[in-house]
């Protein structure tokens, strides 16, 4: 028997792809996925997996920040490797004892200058160092320049390896900061392995929950732009300083909610 007849049975509703990024109209071989669609999925998953396991290049980020006269400190969470990081979220939320000592010594040294700093920035790998490599420096450098112009005082930027969001609470409180802002790699999606999240917390201290934070998510090329994310963060910072709080009580009024009335057209019933 010859295999001259093509095995792939295409789905003739390709035009529906204009309405969604979902993987529709993939076609089939028998009842199974055609080779190309199968391998495209494998590629997306491979990228997401690589992003999860990529080692955070804190030296490079640090060098890039030093180049624009920004000071940095590099710390490590209590999760010493990726394996324990993934299984023990509690360890990723606190500093290793060495890193805690380091920040405590810094504080001792500057004791005479006991005034609070306005903002401590933390850059943590989270679940995607790739997100940080792609986005963190480009986002933070113009942001800090702008904040300094408007008289915000800013602590040295802390780079945290194997960190989860809440590690910012301990760091912010050790640096005596009024507000901590954590830039962190989000859990990679199949089509977004390099998505960065931004979390802001007023009066950081260990033991706070997510209810105390404001979050700006999906910052990346193809997601929320740096300009838009900066705009929202600036708003949150100003409101937070003014009202001395953050989290559920501080709603992000800048968010243009999904317009509920747009796009209610539905080809399945509107005819």
């Amino acid at each position, binding site marked *: 028997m010859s295999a001259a007849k093509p095995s792939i049975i295409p789905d003739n509703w390709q035009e529906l792809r204009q309405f969604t990024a979902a993987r529709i109209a993939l076609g089939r071989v028998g009842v199974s996925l055609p080779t190309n669609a199968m391998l495209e999925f494998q590629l997306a998953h491979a990228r997401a997996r690589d992003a999860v396991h990529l080692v955070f290049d804190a030296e490079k980020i640090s060098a890039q920040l030093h180049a624009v006269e920004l000071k940095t400190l590099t710390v490590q969470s209590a999760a010493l490797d990726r394996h324990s990081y993934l299984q023990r*979220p509690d360890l990723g939320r606190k500093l290793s004892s060495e890193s805690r000592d380091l920040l405590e010594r810094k504080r001792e040294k500057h004791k005479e200058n006991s005034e609070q700093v306005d903002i401590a920035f933390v850059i943590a790998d989270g679940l995607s160092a790739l997100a940080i490599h792609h986005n963190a420096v480009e986002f933070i450098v113009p942001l800090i320049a702008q904040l300094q112009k408007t008289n915000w005082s800013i602590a040295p930027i802390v780079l945290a390896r194997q960190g989860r969001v809440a590690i910012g609470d301990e760091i912010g409180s050790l640096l005596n900061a009024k507000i901590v802002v954590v830039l962190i790699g989000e859990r990679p999606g199949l089509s977004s392995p390099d998505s960065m999240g931004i979390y802001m917390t007023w009066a950081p201290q260990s033991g706070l929950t997510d209810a105390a934070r404001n979050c700006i998510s999906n910052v990346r090329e193809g997601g929320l732009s740096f300009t838009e994310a900066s705009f929202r963060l600036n708003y949150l910072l100003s409101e937070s300083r003014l009202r001395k709080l953050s989290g559920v009580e501080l709603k992000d009024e800048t968010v243009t909610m999904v317009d509920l009335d747009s796009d209610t057209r539905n080809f399945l019933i509107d005819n």
Partner: protein
Amino acid sequence: MTAYSHTVGQLVYRFTDLRDLLAKATPARSGDVLAGVAAESAEQRVAAQMALAELPLSTFLNEAIIPYESDEITRLIFDTHNTAAFSLISHLTVGDFRNWLLSDDADEPTLTALSSGITPEMAAAVSKIMRVQDLILVAQKCRVTTAFRDTIGLKGRLSTRLQPNHPTDAAAGIAASILDGLLYGSGDAVIGINPATDNLPQVIKLMTMLDAIISRYEIPTQSCVLTHVTNTIEAINRGAPVDLVFQSIGGTQATNTSFGINLNVLAEARAAALALKRGTIGDNVMYFETGQGSSLSANAHGGVDQQTCEVRAYAVARHFKPLLVNTVVGFIGPEYLYDGKQIIRAGLEDHFCGKLLGLPMGCDVCYTNHAEADQNDMDVLLTLLGVAGCTFVMGIPGSDDIMLNYQTTSFHDALYARRALNLQPAPEFSAWLERMQIFSADSDTRVSEALPHPFQRALTNLL
């Protein structure tokens, strides 16, 4: 509280109470390590399993692992226990129970009659000393059927939830995924959307849209928008066309408090949905989701291992006669189920325990990108669940949920399982697929490459 012990050679292993014994006997998983309740060595785990095997089943009726006074789920379990049904197995130990379940005496009618005599803790205990093949073989013998507009759970059937999620709830985007799914034979368990927001007017819009699609094409299935139960009650009050009421549930009162629910709210929601009388051939109106680790995640596990917490959630589900119960097994992440091996076993445990307790048990065969799992692991779990007689699985375009950012089974995957294991969709839905000329009578081969006429008309409008 009774302490337990077991001697292996020269070593005496001690377990402080029933909770501790159950936790130490649990096959390894990261969530129990995170909670600090897991066995400290492989030998201690087996010693606990040996001690558990010698425990009379009646122990679970004399000792509560979460106090009766402080937990309404414990009260529900004890107050609704069917002692007459239990009398058949009341003389057995946990180890004897495993033997009996695997024996030819435990046939389909016997297991059906017994289910209300089994408590979640008994089911959890026996599952901990069962291997994968045991979990499959006994689950196969449990038959649970439910109905709303079609019949779910018949022998030789595998149903699917069509999950047409879209990150901004765009109507045309959702409709595109629904059409893709229907043309791949998906959606007989439910067409169920996870909305992007809990905004009530938006939720009602989605409910209305699903109702219009189901009515227009006369699809023998039901709809569900997976919003908080209190939202659904309010939607019903405002006249929305609600088929199924959704809620995530957990196995401790504290877990459910963290979800903002209790048994009264669930009862109220069920009564409201029943009053709408929208089911044509049955009145199972609830759709519940569960998953190992939810209690720990809410810091509400009370020292109980995650699998036992999970099975206690089934007592809640059972009380409200659901159409569907879905264990979302790999969604929670590697801190609870680390890798494919842990996810696979957990999915089979949940399915077995649910079926033993008389639930229409389905499974979201899924994983996140930070878990040590991939499509091969999902193929293994899907196949094993198909063999075990799983009631339903998810169906999503190309396995990629672009709203929830995780991977679950695709429309293609369900067709694979049906073809490999000779399974069909629900009979009413099968007949619809044939009538619409989507599939031939064997519900496997597509009739034609051309679009069925009514859908062709819908698409023509686009051009």
